[in-house]
């Protein structure tokens, strides 16, 4: 931690301590029990703030459990649009007796606690503003059904919090109606709970004591809220995916499940038949095997998984690479190794994707940072897979995949699909013959035919064993080497076709950040902190794909030190970068690593950079 406390920070913190008002800049944490049905309530609360035009983000910190273990949902509202996780909690809703004491103890002074009255949390601290609510008692006013009462208690806290934060009740009602769309009974019941909550708060509490307030802004107009997995599913659908085969695994399951929902709505033809197939496989091996079989036969195919699934898919991935078969593989990464923390986030599959499978293999990996990019890169992945005839990975993570993010509406992709170098029967009539693995165009990408092509020269034999340009079995050293070198050339060609990085060169900056994926949100907020609080300009390189592009070396050349920010223990992306850069540039690489399973936050990045820079000067 830096011991200097800059002016700006002091001012803001004083405002918090002195009772505000703090407008549109706070975080709420709702501590509940997993399986208690709090998700709908939290979504309603988040949406209400969003509908008031205030930038907002929501993160669900949940256990690997169906019901009974603690879960925390944090909502961050921020007028400046910062949507990364913020460490400090301003407003706690303590509904879980198991964690309530610890939740309260963790708060900074002068924060606000809404809690179930019977938990008597005010005994633990004297420096917080406590708002006891008899949730259980209030819920009995609505229904005698005890199960339903538990659910409704959640909506009651939405009412209480809305009243205290001065959220427009009309917006809360709109959000609620949207949440329970088409279920009139649920809408009515929850509306009652909401009203009971706000009425209770109005009658019992002095809301001016709460420094945090929502005031209408205009920063979310026309924006959508969506999770990364749904965004990726939409990207797949608009990319014309026809075969999706998958095996359930957290945090990727919702990708194919959402895809199935959308496809049933938008991809059923007039005669009632599906122009797609979605199959839940028996395991990840089968899931990727089916995707590769379908890709070989010409379908736009995909699978979706997480780290353990990637481990299981290794052999097939190598086959896809070596036999040159297109498919798209989503890895929604979670905390490893092994089962790890299945419901927590990490960026730790980088090396296992970049070099997946035995032998000399290397792959194209697209790395979305936002829900917009989940959509766009899902779409692009199908073009790249078919263009390069190889498995293409899209590496998202739990934070992006399963949490709700604010975004601009997705743009309709107007381009024609790139179906790659596929020869038709007519092409073969003209050409007479073709050699499956010959580098005709000098880009390393060969031509292929699809089974079912009605021409005597169309057939070839695909194999994961050694083969020559005619796809015949070969163990000849020259055939083997030529093929491996062509595959390498193909990878080199890919550098010009993968999404390029986004680079901000700060004027006069000697140091730079290099980040990717969800770390982006913490980095851009950190850049602002460094500028405002420390008058320090830092450049930023946001990597969006492997293989790297030519811009990488240039960025290192232009800075003295480049801090690679990533969410894993070993600095995997840093390692990958070091392998590519010449030694004199690789020496400039520094590493900032966050790997607790909790999403990285801006303050962590800022502090780590300052500490490293300070250390470096000594």
């Amino acid at each position, binding site marked *: 931690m830096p011991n200097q406390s800059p002016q700006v920070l002091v001012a803001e913190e004083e405002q918090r301590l002195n009772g505000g008002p703090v407008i549109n800049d706070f975080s709420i944490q709702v501590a509940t029990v997993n399986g208690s049905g709090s998700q709908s309530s939290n979504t309603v609360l988040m949406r209400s703030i969003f509908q008031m035009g205030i930038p907002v983000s929501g993160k669900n910190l949940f256990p690997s459990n169906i019901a009974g273990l603690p879960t925390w949902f944090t909502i961050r509202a921020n007028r400046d649009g910062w949507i990364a996780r913020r460490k400090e909690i301003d407003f706690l809703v303590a509904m879980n007796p198991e964690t309530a004491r610890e939740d309260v103890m963790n708060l900074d002074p002068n924060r606000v606690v809404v809690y179930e009255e019977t938990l008597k949390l005010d005994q633990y601290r004297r420096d917080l503003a406590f708002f006891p609510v008899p949730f259980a008692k209030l819920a009995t006013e609505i229904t005698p059904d005890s199960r339903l009462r538990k659910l409704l208690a959640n909506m009651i806290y939405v009412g209480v919090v809305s009243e205290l934060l001065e959220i427009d009740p009309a917006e809360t009602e709109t959000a609620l109606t949207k949440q329970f769309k088409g279920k009139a009974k649920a809408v009515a019941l929850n509306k009652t709970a909401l009203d009971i909550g706000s009425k209770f708060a109005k009658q019992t509490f002095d809301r001016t004591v709460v420094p945090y307030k929502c005031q209408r802004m205009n920063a979310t107009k*026309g*924006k*959508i*809220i*969506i999770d990364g997995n749904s965004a990726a599913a939409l990207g797949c*659908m*608009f*990319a*014309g*995916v*026809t*075969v999706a*085969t998958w095996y359930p695994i957290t945090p990727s399951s919702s990708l194919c499940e959402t895809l199935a929902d*959308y496809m049933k709505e938008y*991809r059923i*033809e007039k*005669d009632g*038949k*599906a*122009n*797609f*197939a979605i*199959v839940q496989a*028996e395991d990840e*091996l*089968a*899931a990727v*095997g*089916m995707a*590769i*079989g*379908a*890709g*070989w*036969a*010409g*379908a*736009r*195919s995909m699978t979706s998984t997480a780290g353990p699934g990637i481990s299981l898919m290794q052999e*097939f991935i190598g*086959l896809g690479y070596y036999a040159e078969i297109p498919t798209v593989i989503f890895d929604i990464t979670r905390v490893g190794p092994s089962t790890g923390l299945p419901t927590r986030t990490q960026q730790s599959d980088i090396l296992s994707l970049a070099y997946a499978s035995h032998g000399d293999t290397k792959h194209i990996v697209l790395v979305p940072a936002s829900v917009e990019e989940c959509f766009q890169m899902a779409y692009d992945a199908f073009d790249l897979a078919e263009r390069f005839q190889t498995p293409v990975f899209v590496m998202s993570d739990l934070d992006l995949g399963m949490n709700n993010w604010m975004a601009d*509406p*997705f743009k*309709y992709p107007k381009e024609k*699909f790139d179906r790659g170098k596929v020869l038709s029967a007519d092409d073969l009539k003209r050409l007479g013959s073709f050699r499956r693995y010959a580098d005709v165009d000098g880009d390393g990408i060969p031509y292929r*035919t*699809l*089974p*079912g*092509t009605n021409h*005597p020269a*169309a*057939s*070839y*034999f*695909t*194999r*994961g*064993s050694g083969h020559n340009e005619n796809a015949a*079995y070969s163990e000849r050293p020259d055939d083997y080497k030529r093929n491996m070198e062509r595959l390498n050339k193909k990878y080199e060609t890919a550098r010009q076709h993968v999404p390029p990085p986004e680079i901000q060169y700060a004027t006069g900056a000697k140091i730079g950040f290099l980040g990717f994926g969800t770390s982006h949100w913490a980095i851009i907020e950190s850049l602002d902190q460094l500028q405002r609080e420390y008058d320090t300009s830092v450049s930023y390189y946001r990597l969006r794909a492997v293989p790297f592009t030519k811009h990488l070396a240039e960025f290192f050349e232009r800075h003295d030190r480049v801090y690679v920010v990533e969410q894993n223990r070993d600095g995997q992306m840093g390692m990958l970068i070091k392998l590519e850069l010449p030694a004199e540039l690789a020496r400039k690489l520094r590493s900032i690593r966050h790997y607790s399973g909790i999403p990285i936050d801006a303050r962590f990045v800022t502090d780590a950079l300052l500490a490293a820079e300070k250390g470096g000067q000594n």
Partner: protein
Amino acid sequence: MSLTTQQPPAAAPKNVNRLGLTMADYKGAESTLCAGCGHDAITSQIIKAFYEYGVEPHRVAKLSGIGCSSKTPAYFLSKSHGFNGVHGRMPAIATGVMLANKSLISIGVSGDGDTASIGMGQFVHLLRRNVPMIYIIENNGVYGLTKGQFSATADLGSKAKSGVMNDLPAIDVCTMAIELGCNFVARSFAGDPKQMVALLKAALGHRGTAVFDVISPCVTFNNHEGSTKSYKYAKDHEELLHEISFVPFFEQITVDYSDGETSDVELHDGSHIRLRKTDKGYDPTNKGEALDTLRKCQELNEFLTGLIYINEMKPDFLTLLNMTDEPLATLPQERVQPKEDDLREIMAELM
């Protein structure tokens, strides 16, 4: 009966099938297996069956895993696309291929190791799904390419070439297939080309997974005294369920049911299998009887061949998925990409 057939008889130019193709059009590359390998005999009958049935070679996908058996798709139908995948995972490839292009005819060749050991999980789920394909198990009870280790179909008490006795019970792939809902289960012997070709054609007429377990002796590692998968053992212990003939849908059926000795099963594509009963009076459409007969034969160390079970009423996987009639692989962009208004509608929902 020739046991060492490697090449089908050369077809005279005028010998053509209903598509005008010769037997040579159904051949593949030269086999690299051991001389006398049962697998080559099966390859020959695949060539013959596909030729006689008049299958369009370009519509066929030849699929396999890893092992001696899995090499064989290179030795037949060179005008068909082939895919030699990874060990034990041919069912997944086959499923993906058929999802992508339902107009294809998939023939998968596997072995006992590829199916009953490393590939057991995928085999089981292929059957459960009833993916339309012919699934041949070239069953010799040993791993050939790695020099003679027992496989999971080796019989209890069978002796390896090294003299080691197998002390684990065999997995019976046919019993298992029936239990798992497979609707076409047949077993044959590489030394019985006539039965094999009739069953292969029957499998071509079936819609759904057709499991065809063929005892195919390994002349190098499992053809000795004491082996239960040798040519001699198979011949001595074979129990024919019935004599089989096949009448394809494109040939006229001459009806001679009157003797009560034959029964007909009509296949999905309109072809007929004609079964001439033996003294067993076996009914292959009766699942209970099929399982019972298999169990009895196992107890008596008999090696049962013929059409063990058939049911033409069950829908295949692609039908269950309610997929459009054309192959998904080649649907044009305008059919698989929703419209701009659709995206606008979805975005509005999320606002």
